C-alpha cells in the first residue's frame, strides 16, 4: 500500500487554489525557508571573507614547520597543513579570492554577453547570425576546456582565471538576452517608442534592456556558483591561482596528496567551497521560482 498519493489529479485541468494566486496578494518568496537559509549561509560566508583579517587567528601564509599536519584542536580549529599553516585562517582568506573571482568573472561574462544579446536580438540578419555563430563556436568547447586554453596562454594568475572563466560564460547571456529581446521588441510600448521616432539606442537601453534585466539577474546569481566552481577547478589543476595564495582550489590540490595522514587539510576548504556553491544555487533557485508567477509558493 502506498503511503503517498502519487499524481492523483490532472492538475492542468483542475488547478488547485495555489496555482493562481489571488489578485493583489504577492508571493513573499524572500521569506521562504530555503531562501532565508541560503541567504544566512551566504551572509556568514561573505562576512567571514570580508572580515578575514580580524577573524583569522593566524597569518594565512605564516609557516610553522614544527607544527605541520597538526590535528584540529582549540589552537587550530581545522588543523594545520604541510607547512604548518593554519587551515582555518587560510579557508577564511580563501573565501575572498573565490568570491572576488566569482563576481568579477560573472560581470565580465554578463556585460559583453548582454550587449551581444541586445544587438543580436534587435538587429536581425547578418549581425544576429554572426554573433550567434560566434557564440556557437564558444559553446563548442566542452566543459572548462576553453577556460583552460585561455588561462594556459595568459599564464597562471588571478586575473587570467577571471578573464578565462568570464569569456567562457559570455554565450549563456547572449542566448538568454537575445531570446528575450525577440519577445520584448514585439511589445506595444516598443512599437510606440519606434513610432514616435525614438532613436535605436534609446529603444534598446531605455525600453528593452530594463525588461530583460530580470532574467539576467537570475542567470548572474546562478552563474556566480558556476564561476567559483570553474575558477577553483583551474586552481586545483595547477593552472589558476598559484600557491602559496590561500585559495580553496589550491588548498585542495595541496592537501590531496596527504589524505591518508591529514584528511582535515582538504575537508575544510572543500566544505567551504561546497557550502558556498550550494547556498548560491539554492538562492538562485528561489530567485528564479520567486520571479516566475507559475510556481507555487513553498512553505
Amino acid at each position: 500500500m502506498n503511503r503517498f498519493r502519487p499524481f492523483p489529479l490532472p492538475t492542468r485541468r483542475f488547478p488547485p487554489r495555489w496555482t493562481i494566486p489571488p489578485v493583489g496578494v504577492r508571493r513573499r518568496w524572500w521569506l521562504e525557508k530555503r531562501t532565508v537559509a541560503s541567504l544566512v549561509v551566504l551572509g556568514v560566508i561573505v562576512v567571514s571573507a570580508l572580515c578575514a583579517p580580524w577573524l583569522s587567528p593566524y597569518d594565512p601564509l605564516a609557516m610553522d614547520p614544527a607544527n605541520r599536519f597538526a590535528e584540529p584542536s582549540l589552537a587550530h580549529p581545522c588543523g594545520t597543513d604541510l607547512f604548518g599553516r593554519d587551515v582555518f585562517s587560510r579557508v577564511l582568506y580563501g573565501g575572498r579570492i573565490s568570491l572576488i573571482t566569482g563576481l568579477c568573472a560573472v560581470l565580465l561574462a554578463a556585460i559583453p554577453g548582454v550587449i551581444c544579446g541586445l544587438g543580436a536580438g534587435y538587429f536581425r540578419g547578418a549581425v544576429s547570425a554572426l554573433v550567434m555563430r560566434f557564440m556557437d563556436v564558444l559553446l563548442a568547447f566542452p566543459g572548462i576546456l576553453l577556460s583552460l586554453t585561455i588561462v594556459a596562454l595568459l599564464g597562471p594568475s588571478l586575473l587570467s582565471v577571471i578573464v578565462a572563466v568570464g569569456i567562457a560564460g559570455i554565450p549563456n547571456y547572449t542566448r538568454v538576452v537575445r531570446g528575450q529581446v525577440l519577445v520584448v521588441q514585439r511589445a506595444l510600448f516598443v512599437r510606440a517608442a519606434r513610432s514616435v521616432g525614438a532613436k535605436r539606442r534609446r529603444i534598446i537601453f531605455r525600453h528593452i534592456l530594463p525588461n530583460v534585466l530580470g532574467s539576467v539577474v537570475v542567470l548572474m546569481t546562478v552563474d556566480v556558483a558556476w564561476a567559483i566552481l570553474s575558477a577553483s577547478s583551474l586552481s586545483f589543476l595547477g593552472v589558476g591561482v598559484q600557491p602559496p595564495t590561500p585559495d580553496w582550489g589550491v588548498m585542495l590540490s595541496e592537501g590531496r596528496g596527504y589524505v591518508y595522514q591529514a584528511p582535515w587539510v582538504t575537508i575544510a576548504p572543500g566544505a567551504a567551497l561546497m557550502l558556498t556553491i550550494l547556498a548560491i544555487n539554492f538562492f538562485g533557485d528561489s530567485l528564479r521560482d520567486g520571479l516566475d508567477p507559475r510556481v507555487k509558493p513553498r512553505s
Partner: protein
Amino acid sequence: MLPYVLKRLLYAVPVIWGVVTLVFVLTRALPGDPVETMLSQSGGSAEAIAQMRAALALDAPLHEQYARFWWDLARGDLGRSLFTNRPVLTTIMEQLPNTIVLALSAMLVAVFCGMVLGVLAAVYQNTWVDTLCMTLAVFGVSMPVFWSGILLITLFSAALHWLPATGQGSFKHLLMPMFVLGFASSGAIARLIRADMLEVLAEDYIVTARAKGLRLRTTIVRHALRNALIPALTLIGLQFGFLLGGTVVTETVFSRQGIGRLVIDAILWKDFPVVQGAVLFSAIAYTLLNIVVDVSYVFVDPRLRSDAR
C-alpha cells in the same frame, strides 16, 4: 531523414571552421607570444625562442600561418609534441579510449541516478521524497568533482581500503571516478526529468492509464517516463560535453591516463602543440557528438520524423 542529417552536418561546418579559427587566433594573435611564455619561464634564451618560432613557422605572416594550419589539419597533422617529439594525433588516439570509457560509464551513472531521482521527485511531488531527491540533485550540481573525489578516496581507499585510490586497468579502478563524475552530472538531469515528468503526468493518457487500473509502475515506466525522456535527451547530449570537460579534473584527482590529463600535463609543461591539438580534437568531437544527439532525437520522437523529412 538523410536531408536532415546533411543539413545538420552543413550547419556544423561554420562552427568547426570557427573552432579551428578561434584556436588559431588564441594561440597566434593573443597579446603575449606562446613560445616566449613557454621558453622564458623555463629560462630559454632569445636565440632558442627565435629558433622555435622558425620551427613552428610562427615568424611567417599571419595569413600564411593560417593557410598552413588548415593544410596540416586537413592531412590530420596536429604537429609534434615538444617533449616527446611524437605526433600529437597519435598521442591523443592512445589516450582516447581511457577518456571514452570514463565519460561513457559516468554518463550511465548520471542517466541512471538522474532518472531515479527525477521520477521519484515527480511521482511523489511535494512530499519529503520530492524534497530529498531535489536536495540530492542540488548537491550533485554543487559538489566540486575534485572534492567529492578526494572524499571518496579518503573513505574508500584511506579508511576502508576497499578501492584503489589511483591508476587504472580494472573495474575497481573505474568505480570511484565514474561515480564522482556521473553524480555531478546527474543533478541537472534529475531536475529536468522531474519537470518533464510533472507535465506528462498531467496528460489525459496517464489519467486514462490509471483509470483503467494499470499498475503505478507500468504507468510510470511505460507511459510517462518514455515521453518525459525525449526532452531530456538534449540535456543528456549537452551533459556529455560537461563530462568530457569533467574528465580533465577527474583524471587528475584519480591520476588516470586520458585526454584531460594529457591537456593538463601539456599545459604545465608548456607543450603548446599538444594543448592546441587536444583542445581542437575535443571541440570538434563534441560538435559532431551534438549532431549525433540531434539526429537520434528524430529516431526517438516519431513526431519529429515528418518535420525532418
